[in-house]
């Protein structure tokens, strides 16, 4: 797979929505341990909005921007701005109806960069950045076609999320727990890893 078409990207989004929704309860339960118990609801609603916007999309830039606005409008909490910022950023770096490998890499890099304007969280802080930053880095470093790129992203995200179990939270609602935040995965890292996993599953 040398290019990522708009249609395939829409399938990836749809898959991400379905897989995340299937684990909604799990993500909320994770959030209940150290946060406020709503991450499953928030991320599912955000991806539902993104998925709805996919239906009307005819071009990457316009569609991604629309996805961002729709996600921010319909979902609430940290997830609203984080996922909104991600799609907003991706939109600035993607045009047309199909993207080649460097263009996909650039799109994800731009998504991450945009989010970093809204938060200073870094890998190690026990947030979704622990899944996203390694995922984007691995995708950039990946050699091969689109599939290889998403495979690398999915694996890195999964490993990153798993590593959050041992971390102490430094951002978000879990921060005040201090050492007691250790022992469970971060809900955002887990849901974003699920999303990156689904991206790959959709094309594998």
């Amino acid at each position, binding site marked *: 797979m040398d290019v990522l078409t708009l249609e395939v990207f829409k399938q990836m989004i749809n898959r991400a929505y379905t897989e995340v929704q299937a684990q909604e309860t799990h993500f909320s*339960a994770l959030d209940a341990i150290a946060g*406020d*118990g709503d991450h499953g609801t928030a991320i599912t609603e955000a991806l539902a909005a993104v998925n709805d916007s996919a239906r009307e999309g005819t071009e990457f830039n316009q569609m991604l921007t629309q996805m961002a606005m729709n996600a921010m409008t319909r979902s*609430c*909490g940290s*997830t*609203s701005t984080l996922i909104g910022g991600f799609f907003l950023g991706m939109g600035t770096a993607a045009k047309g109806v199909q993207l080649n490998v460097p263009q996909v890499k650039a799109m994800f890099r731009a998504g991450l960069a945009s989010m970093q304007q809204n*938060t200073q969280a870094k890998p190690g802080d026990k947030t979704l950045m622990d899944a996203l930053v390694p995922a984007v880095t691995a995708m950039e470093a990946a050699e091969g076609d689109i599939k290889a790129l998403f495979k690398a992203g999915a694996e890195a995200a999964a490993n990153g999320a798993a590593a959050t179990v041992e971390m102490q939270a430094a951002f978000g*609602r879990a921060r*005040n727990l201090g050492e007691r935040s250790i022992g469970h995965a971060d809900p955002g890292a887990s849901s974003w890893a699920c999303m990156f996993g689904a991206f790959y599953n959709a094309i594998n």
Partner: protein
Amino acid sequence: MENQIYKWINDPKHITEELLEGYVMAYADKVQLFGTHTIVRAQPKPEDQVAVVTLGGAGHEPALSGFVGKGMLDCSVVGDIFAAPGAPRLLEALKKFNRPAGILLVVLNHAGDVMSANMAKQMADAMNIKVKIMLTHEDISAGLDTPDQDRRGLAGCVPLYKIVGAAADAGKSLEEVYEIGERFNSQMATLAVAMKACTHPQSGVTIAELPLGEMEIGMGQHGEGGGGRSPLLSADETASKMIGPLMQKLQIQKGDKVLLYINGVGATTHMEMSIIFRKAGQVLQESGAELVDGKITELLTVQEQSGFQMILGKLDDDHVDYLKNHGSDAPYWTVNP
């Protein structure tokens, strides 16, 4: 979701809309809805006065929307249960209150609220809407020396609303309102305690389970755990353990005029809060501080959690004036002028 919800709700998805509808129906002479999730005054104030807007999740009633009304907030933008509204909704409110006098946007320091506010402000800036953000961060549970950005905003926002709302309604400029508010903001501190967890009204999950017979000082406003757990202490012991650090943080001295509020977060009774107030008030009086404003009530709740927040503020003369002498007519905060 699998968890049974033991609350009087209908479809968990529509809790926020429905509660806001009920709220404006009950207090129709004071507040009304703008869209589905934004509460504004029933009688808007003149455009030459600074508008005071806030944002936050639902599930904390009467906060935040209960304080919209004459002499307090102009607008409260509501998200979903425990979840900040997204930036687009907030932007709509900023557009509605766009005015030469400007908008003061009061934001409680929680990641979601701050990110939404910043994102909306960026969008508003691009549209030349004059907005100044004031961040509250008075929770001292993370330690007395923790930097502002790492401290949460708790119920201390409510007296702040009263002060900036009174100043704005009195015709002060945005810069003046901001200065008056920041001065109070930097002189108040809050500490929360809980002894029984709450359940999330949409998912039914228990947030931050606490073993029976234990309590936790430093509990956050959504049930997130915080400070140290201990066996349940008596009212006097608990009050002493909380008022001490608060006084230390604000360096309370003889002659200081202070505000002390006990904010119930849910199942804890007014009875208990009054007993807590008694002890904390005694400690303050022993230090020579002058208690000029007290409250024992539910301002900002956390569902059916058992617990309370203790809010201490050091007041300048104009704060006393704005709190006590300027009238207000919000559904949950009325002061005779």
